[in-house]
C-alpha cells in the first residue's frame, strides 16, 4: 500500500496536508485532509471582559477579520440583552458588504481564477496572479481596483480595515457623515459596475469553456447550511436554514444551533466534523453520506428562496434554470460567489441610499450580566457562529466558535477523495494531478490563516510515496 502526501511545509507542521492512501492496485483507498485550526483561543478568552472580544477576534484571522468582528459584536449584543439602533445594523451590514466585495473579488479572480483563466492543467509558473495579469492585463487592473475599493469602504466606515474595532456591543462607535456617504456611494457604484462586468465576463469567457469540467469534476451530494431573512439571502442577519440533499429545509434561530448541529471527531485530526444532528449519524461514504452539509457561497445560493436585489435575483434564476436547487457541483461555488458579489454591491448601494444611514445615534449603553449570547453571520467562507457565556460581572465563562471551514471539513474531505479517485488510476499520477486535487479544496476557500504565516517559500507542496512499511519509496517536490 502506498501513500501520497500533499503538504505545504509551514512552521507548524501539517498546516494543510493531504494524504492519499492507495491500495495494492494503486487505486485510491482513502484520503485525509488535515487542516490545523487555531487551537486554544476559547481558553484564552475565559476570564476576560466580554466586551473585549470584538476587538480581539479580528486577530484570529487577517483574511476574514470583519466576519469575526461582527459575529462577536452580535454575540455581545445578545449577552448584554441589547437591541442595537437601526442605523448601527445598517452600518454593520454596509461595512460587511465592503468586506464581501473585497474578499470575493480576491478569491474568484486572484486565488481560484487562475485555475480557469489559465486552465486547470497549466503549469504553476503561469497559473498565478502574474500569469493572469500578463494574459488579461485590463481585467487584472479592474479586479485589483474593485478589491481595493471594497477594502476602502470598510476603512471609511471603520477607520481601519485590517483589525477593525468600530463595531461595539450595543452598536457602532462612529457615525458616518454626509460627506463620507457621498464618497461611499461613488465607491459602491463602481463596485457594482465591476460586479456586473465580472458576471458577464465569466458567463461569456470562462464558464462555457469549463462547463464540462464543472459538471464532471468530483461530484458529491450533501445538504447545505446558510442564513436567510424571510427566506431571502442575507449575509449579516436572519435565521439559519438547514437544507438536506433532497431540497427539504428547516429554519431555526442561530442561538439554537446546538439543536441542529452535532460534532463528530476523527482520531487523525484536531478539526471537528459538524453534521446535521437529525440525520442520526455521520458518514463521509461517497455513495451514501449521512449528516453531511456544506456552507459558503453555493450553500447560501441554494438555501435562499430569493435574493432581494434585482440583478443578483436575475442571476439566481438563471443559475437555478441551469443547475437546479440544490445545485451540488462543487466547482459551482465559484459561480455562486459571483452572484453574491453582485448582491453585496447592490446591497451596498441600497443601504447608502437610505437617508437614515447618517443618524448619529449609533450606540446604546450596555451593562454586564450573567447570560449566554450567540452571534451568527455568513462569513465569505461559510456560516460563522460565536457563542459566549458570561458571569454577573460580564467576564467570559465559556466560548465556542464554529467557523465556515469547520462546517465544510467533511465535505472538503469527500471532495478530495472523489477527485483523487477519479484522477488516480492504477498508481498513475503526475504533478498536474496534484493541482486538480488542490482545486477541490480551493473551491471551498478554506481559511487557514488562523494558525501562522509563512515567509520563506520553501517547498510548500511535497509528495511522499510511502510503502506499507512506512518507508519512503519516492519523494516528489513541486
Amino acid at each position, binding site marked *: 500500500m502506498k501513500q501520497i502526501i500533499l503538504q505545504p511545509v509551514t512552521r*507548524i507542521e501539517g498546516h494543510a496536508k493531504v494524504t492519499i492512501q492507495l491500495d495494492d492496485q494503486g487505486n485510491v483507498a482513502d484520503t485525509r485532509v488535515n487542516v490545523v485550526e487555531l487551537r486554544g*483561543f476559547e481558553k*484564552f478568552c475565559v476570564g476576560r471582559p466580554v466586551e473585549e472580544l470584538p476587538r480581539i477576534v479580528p486577530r484570529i484571522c*487577517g*483574511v476574514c477579520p470583519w466576519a469575526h468582528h461582527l459575529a462577536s459584536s452580535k454575540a455581545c449584543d445578545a449577552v448584554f440583552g441589547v437591541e442595537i439602533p437601526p442605523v448601527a445594523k445598517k452600518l454593520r451590514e454596509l461595512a460587511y458588504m465592503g468586506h464581501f466585495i473585497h474578499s470575493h473579488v480576491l478569491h474568484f479572480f486572484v486565488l481560484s481564477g487562475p485555475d480557469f483563466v489559465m486552465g486547470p492543467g497549466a503549469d504553476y509558473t503561469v497559473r498565478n496572479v502574474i500569469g493572469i495579469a500578463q494574459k488579461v492585463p485590463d481585467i487584472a487592473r479592474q479586479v485589483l481596483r474593485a478589491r481595493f475599493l471594497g*477594502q476602502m469602504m470598510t476603512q471609511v466606515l471603520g477607520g481601519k480595515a485590517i*483589525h477593525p474595532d468600530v463595531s461595539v456591543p450595543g452598536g457602532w462607535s462612529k457615525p458616518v457623515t454626509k460627506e463620507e456617504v457621498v464618497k461611499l456611494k461613488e465607491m459602491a457604484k463602481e463596485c457594482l459596475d465591476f460586479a456586473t462586468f465580472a458576471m458577464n465576463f465569466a458567463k461569456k469567457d470562462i464558464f462555457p469553456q469549463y462547463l464540462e469540467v464543472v459538471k464532471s469534476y468530483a461530484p458529491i451530494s450533501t445538504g447545505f447550511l446558510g442564513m436567510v431573512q424571510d427566506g431571502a439571502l442575507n449575509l449579516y442577519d436572519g435565521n439559519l436554514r438547514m437544507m438536506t440533499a433532497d431540497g427539504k429545509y428547516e429554519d431555526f434561530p442561530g442561538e439554537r444551533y446546538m439543536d441542529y448541529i452535532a460534532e463528530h471527531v476523527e482520531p487523525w485530526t484536531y478539526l471537528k466534523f459538524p453534521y446535521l444532528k437529525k440525520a442520526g449519524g455521520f458518514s463521509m461514504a461517497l455513495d451514501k453520506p449521512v449528516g453531511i452539509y456544506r456552507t459558503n457561497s453555493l450553500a447560501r445560493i441554494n438555501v435562499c428562496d430569493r435574493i432581494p436585489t434585482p440583478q443578483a435575483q436575475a442571476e439566481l434564476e438563471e443559475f437555478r434554470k441551469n443547475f437546479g436547487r440544490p445545485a451540488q457541483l462543487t466547482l459551482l461555488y465559484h459561480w455562486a460567489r459571483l452572484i453574491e458579489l453582485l448582491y453585496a454591491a447592490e446591497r451596498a448601494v441600497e443601504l447608502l441610499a437610505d437617508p437614515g444611514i447618517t443618524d448619529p445615534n449609533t450606540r446604546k449603553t450596555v451593562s454586564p450580566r450573567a447570560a449566554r449570547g450567540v452571534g451568527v453571520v455568513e462569513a465569505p467562507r461559510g456560516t460563522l457562529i460565536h457563542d459566549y457565556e458570561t458571569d454577573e460581572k460580564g467576564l467570559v465563562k465559556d466560548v465556542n466558535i464554529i467557523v465556515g471551514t469547520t462546517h465544510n471539513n467533511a465535505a472538503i474531505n469527500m471532495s478530495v477523495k472523489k477527485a483523487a479517485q477519479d484522477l488516480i488510476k492504477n498508481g498513475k499520477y503526475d504533478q498536474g494531478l496534484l493541482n486538480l486535487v488542490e482545486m477541490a479544496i480551493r473551491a471551498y476557500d478554506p481559511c487557514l490563516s488562523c494558525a501562522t504565516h509563512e515567509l520563506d517559500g520553501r517547498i510548500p507542496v511535497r509528495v511522499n510515496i510511502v510503502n506499507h512499511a512506512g518507508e519512503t519509496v519516492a519523494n516528489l517536490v*513541486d
Partner: protein
Amino acid sequence: MAEAAGYVPEYCRKDTLVLGCGNVLLGDDGFGPQVIAYLQSHYPLPEDVALLDVGTGVQGVLLDLALSQQKPRRLVLVDVLDRGQPPGTIATLRVDSLPPGRGGDFFPHLSPTSSLLRELEKLAGVEVVLLTVQSPGLPQEVHPGLSAPVLEAVPRACELIARSFFSHA
C-alpha cells in the same frame, strides 16, 4: 475615479512603508506587530515613513500596493523567520535570498508569498527589505507574548530600522 479623489491609503504615498507581520496571539509570531508598536511609542516618525501592523493580513496590503498607482519606494517587512540561528538573532535579507518556490500560493491565507514580494520588486520597482528575527520556537496553541530573546530583540530591531530607514532619526 475614486483614487484621483483621494482614496489612496496614506501608506501608499510614503517613501518607506514598514509592515509588522504576524499573529500576536501566537508567541513570537507577534514580533512584527510588537516592533511597530515600539517604533510608534519610542521614535518620532519621519513624514516620509508609514508604519503598519498588518497582523496576518499582509497579503491584502501587498495586493493593494500592487494595485495602487502610487507605491512606496521601499517596503520593509518585519517578521519572524527560522534560519537556524541563535534565538534573538536579527537579520536583514533581500527577496533574492529567499528560496524560489510557490510558498503561500497554495492557499490564500499563508502569507506573504515570496513570489509576490519578488514581483513587487522586479515589476513594480519597489525595494523590498526583510527584517527577521530568530525565534526559539512558536507555540502550538494560542499563547500571546514574546520569548525573552525575541523580546530583547525588539528595541535592537527598532534601532536598526530607525538608523537605516528613518532619514531624520
